[in-house]
């Protein structure tokens, strides 16, 4: 067998992505405070039904096994089910993320009947109080209703997807119990300072102590709980969590956004991470194979400031998107470095009086402009969270795109 590890092989990139995230629309019925893609309003330039089908044809040719469809809220696209059927008929499996708004009894029965469609219900609090503070009033009840329909229809093993925050980090056992009750599988992912998440990251990201408790909890639950490989920066605590524990950006994962732009990863909607557009000549295949950005991401990476750290081989410097949007150098520590180097770097910037307005901003913002049911108006919103700490100013954005992680739902040799 090969002497190189899989991680080493994957770092050179694959002929086609393993995990492709495809956000079908920026339209959303909710206005979650931490939305990665700053969704809300549909973009007039979104791919048409025919263009989406052409992308699916390409994915079939490239043998992309499945796509993670998200948004926005993908099910509000009028052609959503048509595209799901088209994908599965063309041997491209679909896992879609939803807040549950369209999962009624009939839809649940239809989903339960297909091997090729998987559903992921987003929920960011085990209780309505915690969830709705982030996702909007009524969103907990909506998600629970969807889960009840799926369970009643006999859909086993759908996913309950939770972004771990300071407010829900104490509810892990409750989330697990909820998943068990509905015959679902729990999936925990990391809060990224991407999209609107950049505005609330300071108050929502788990404390150092919570991170440690999360790590211990994940170790205790092993492969029963999925993480999308999103907590690989915690591997520096000791034993690696299940998964590849590498940044897959441009190597094994990427994002196609609603207007066809291809980014290195779902957490990096910014021009520095933009590889091309599926509407260009060679389509998605040419972007994946020929983009200069992806070629750079697949090249060797040095550890930079982290290179001399004894834990670098475990955490690989953490998540590039998290560094980028908090204004940290891409070759330095992750803002949530378990040894505290990220916090030190952020504190150092604050002390140096760096200008917060120089923080890189997401490239696109489709946030609702007016009030959304269940959410206070943006900009004047009472913060959903009581804790408020000082804003960190930051230096100019790094000029080089780099590895970001999210092997969405992926574990080496095993589950996704």
């Amino acid at each position, binding site marked *: *067998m090969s002497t190189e590890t*899989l991680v080493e*092989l994957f770092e050179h990139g*694959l002929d086609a992505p393993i995990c492709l995230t495809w956000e079908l629309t920026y339209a959303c019925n909710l206005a979650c405070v931490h939305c990665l893609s700053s969704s809300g309003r549909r973009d007039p330039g979104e791919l048409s039904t025919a263009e989406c089908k052409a992308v699916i044809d390409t994915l079939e040719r490239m043998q992309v*096994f499945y796509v993670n469809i998200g948004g926005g809220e993908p099910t509000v696209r009028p052609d959503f089910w048509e595209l799901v059927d088209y994908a599965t008929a063309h041997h491209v499996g679909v896992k879609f993320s939803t807040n549950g708004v369209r999962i009624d009894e009939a839809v649940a029965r239809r989903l339960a009947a297909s*091997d090729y469609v998987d559903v992921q219900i987003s929920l960011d609090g085990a209780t309505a109080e915690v969830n709705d503070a982030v996702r909007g009033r009524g969103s907990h009840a909506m998600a629970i209703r969807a889960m009840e329909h799926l369970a009643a229809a006999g859909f086993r093993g759908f996913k309950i997807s939770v972004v771990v925050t300071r407010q829900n980090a104490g509810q892990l056992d409750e989330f697990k119990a909820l998943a068990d009750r509905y015959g679902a599988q729990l999936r925990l992912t990391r809060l990224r300072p991407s999209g609107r998440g950049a505005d609330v990251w300071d108050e929502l990201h788990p404390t150092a102590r919570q991170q440690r408790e999360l790590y211990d909890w994940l170790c205790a639950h092993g492969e029963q709980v999925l993480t999308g490989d999103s907590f690989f920066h915690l591997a520096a605590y000791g034993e690696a969590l299940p998964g590849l524990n590498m940044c897959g950006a441009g190597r094994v994962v990427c994002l196609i956004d609603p207007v066809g732009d291809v980014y290195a990863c779902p957490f990096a909607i910014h021009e520095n991470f933009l590889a091309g557009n599926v509407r260009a000549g060679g389509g998605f295949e040419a972007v994946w194979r020929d983009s200069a950005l992806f070629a750079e991401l697949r090249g060797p990476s040095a550890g930079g400031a982290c290179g001399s750290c004894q834990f670098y081989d475990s955490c690989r410097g953490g998540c590039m998107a998290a560094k980028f949007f908090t204004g940290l150098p891409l070759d330095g520590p992750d803002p949530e470095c378990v040894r505290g180097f990220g916090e030190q770097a952020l504190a150092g910037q604050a002390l140096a009086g760096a200008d917060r307005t120089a923080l890189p901003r997401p490239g696109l913002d489709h946030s609702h402009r007016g009030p959304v049911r269940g959410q206070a108006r943006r900009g004047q919103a009472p913060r959903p969270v009581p804790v408020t700490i000082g804003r960190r100013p930051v230096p100019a954005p790094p000029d080089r795109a780099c590895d970001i992680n999210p092997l969405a739902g992926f574990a080496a*040799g095993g*589950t996704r």
Partner: protein
Amino acid sequence: MVNPGGLFDLDRPWRLDERVAVRPEPFGALLYHFGTRRLSFLKNQTMLAVVRSLGDHPSARAACAAAGVPPAGLPAYERGLATLAGSHMISPREAA
């Protein structure tokens, strides 16, 4: 399946599960099972040849020999096949 001793039965006929898609890659191949929604890897081209030809041979041992696996290398392939059987990527087939 995998016998109680944890070893793989090299001498019975096997086949790739029909719900598994195989995608060749420079290092070997990726396997994806649409039923279990699990992913696996084949770390080299020989393993890929073995897995793809399982259904054409009377035993896994014969498939390994046909793919050029030397006797000394067989235990590693046996372990790999046992892992694939454990995750239902390959399954026992009735002898023709």
